[in-house]
């Protein structure tokens, strides 16, 4: 199913077609993520949640939270929707999004390797690496992303 969709889209040239592809991509990524979560048999919502308020204000769509560094680090990835807003979001080193466990007390806003050092391109994925302060987040639980006064709940932690 995916393969035939790809081959059709690949034959369509031009900028307009590209925008359609971006939209389709986001949908398919969402479906794929959902498929993964179902396959893993995790409980509750299976997709990475989205917040149109966050997207409108910060120009980014968060796409994954993963515990890495053998438990000591967390990567938060996001897709840039609006280059200008996202560049502002990303260079505000004093106010990175905070990640909070929904199961336990604990969270982290300790960001390392933050700057990309240049304009963020729309459609591209970037990341923040967090210190997993006191083991704040664990695999296969749900977290809330707090950014400014906005929040994104029930994000799966991989």
């Amino acid at each position, binding site marked *: 199913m*995916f*393969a035939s*969709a*790809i081959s059709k*889209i*690949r034959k369509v040239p031009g900028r307009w077609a*590209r925008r359609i*592809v*971006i939209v*389709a*991509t986001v949908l*398919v*990524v969402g*479906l*794929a*993520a959902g*498929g*993964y979560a*179902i*396959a*893993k*048999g995790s409980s509750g919502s299976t997709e990475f949640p989205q917040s149109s308020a966050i997207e409108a204000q910060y120009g980014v769509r968060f796409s*994954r939270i*993963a515990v*890495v*560094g*053998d*438990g*000591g*680090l967390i*990567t938060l*990835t996001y*897709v840039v929707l609006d280059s200008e807003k996202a560049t502002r979001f990303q260079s505000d*080193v*004093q106010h*990175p999004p905070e990640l909070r466990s929904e199961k336990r007390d604990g969270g982290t*806003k*300790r*960001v*390392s*390797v*933050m*700057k*990309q*050092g*240049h304009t963020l*391109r729309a*459609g*591209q*994925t*970037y*990341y923040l*690496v967090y*210190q*997993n*302060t*006191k*083991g704040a987040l664990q*695999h296969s639980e749900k977290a809330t992303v707090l950014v400014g006064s906005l929040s994104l709940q029930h994000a799966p932690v*991989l």
Partner: protein
Amino acid sequence: MKRLTIRRPLALLSAAAVIGASALVWSQAAASVAMSEGLLCDTDSNQTFSLTAEDGYVSTPDGNSIYMWSYGNSKRSFQLPGATLCVESGKPVTVVLHNKLPEATSIVFPGQKSVKANGNPAQPQFDSGGSLTSLVQPAAANDGSVTYTFTAGSPGTYLYETGTDVDKQLQMGLYGALVVRPAGHPNQVNDRADSAFTAGKEYVYLLSEIDPDVHLAVERNQPVNWAASTARYFMINGRSMPDTLAPNNAPWLPSQPYGALVHIKPYDAATNPLPATIRYLNAGSVNYPFHPHGSDERVVNRDGHSLQGPAGQDLSYQKYDLDVGPGQTVDVLMDWRDTEHWNATTNPIPTQIPAITDQLLVGSDTWFSESGYLGTKNSVPANLTQNNECGEYYHIAHSHALEQATNYGAAFGGMMTVFRIDPPAGCASQ
């Protein structure tokens, strides 16, 4: 730039398709393959391996998806790099290559002697006009196969890679690592007792590069413009930073199963006397000047040979910059020594946290716990934004050629990872 913007959405879409397709596969594998760090070996009691050369996709941290060729274990699915084969020195090895690619391919085993292909000496192949077609007997396109046999050579690390249309097929991903262990001493790098390492603290760093334009041309069956070829992605074990930090078999990287996080504790004569080992391999076309911050590493092997003199003198040496040339391998021993035994209460040496790159990687965003003492965390100054799990250290390790530490030009990324040093007592939250 134009190519990039066109490529990316398509790439994302195919990445999504790949992720979707592999979701079910992963769920079956998940129960048996735990996420872990460190070397993941393919082993076999008869040292017989079945590899399938096939195509697939890998993802890069910026959301791109790259069409690749690689050697997967025939019982599993596509993976990059090829399966890491671990064998014992002096014993016969059999590698059966199945070829699902649309052109002939082969495997050469540099450093292994008297390799045979289907029972005959492995040797260069020529067409009827006398032109070289392959460095060894290949497996024919579309379901051909060939069996290579040899006796595992001196202990150490070797590349295995394509011997057919090498520039193209190597760029496409046809490479993997062969780890030859000393007979009877699985936890030594070579036959020397002083090459012993801590069991389980063993890491392979297979370094490589990708020019996405070449891969797109091959995928579309178009001619490759080699004159314009420029590598854009730089990888350790088929992953770029920050994916290098993720565990082995991370579910969001279904065809890139190998992580690149070194995780050790400080040297201690009683409780942690042995170093870790890191095996560097260069499957690319240029030098990768790889170096970890914070400590030198002891080079004990080059290209599968221990560094010793004719009378067995130890010729290993401490090195900061591990310059791994194309086709080369370098095996090192690495430990982390707390030479001055700082301790916040018993040996409090007043320090100011220096502004070295380990700590001040970018601006005020540090990797440390606001304390120079391993295992101690201080509160975070108002202008800093970090604190960690248990006072552990993270040393950046990366290619010193800075364009190799980017994801298509975006820093930081590429050939970069961290070495994690835990306090002697371990990490309570683990």
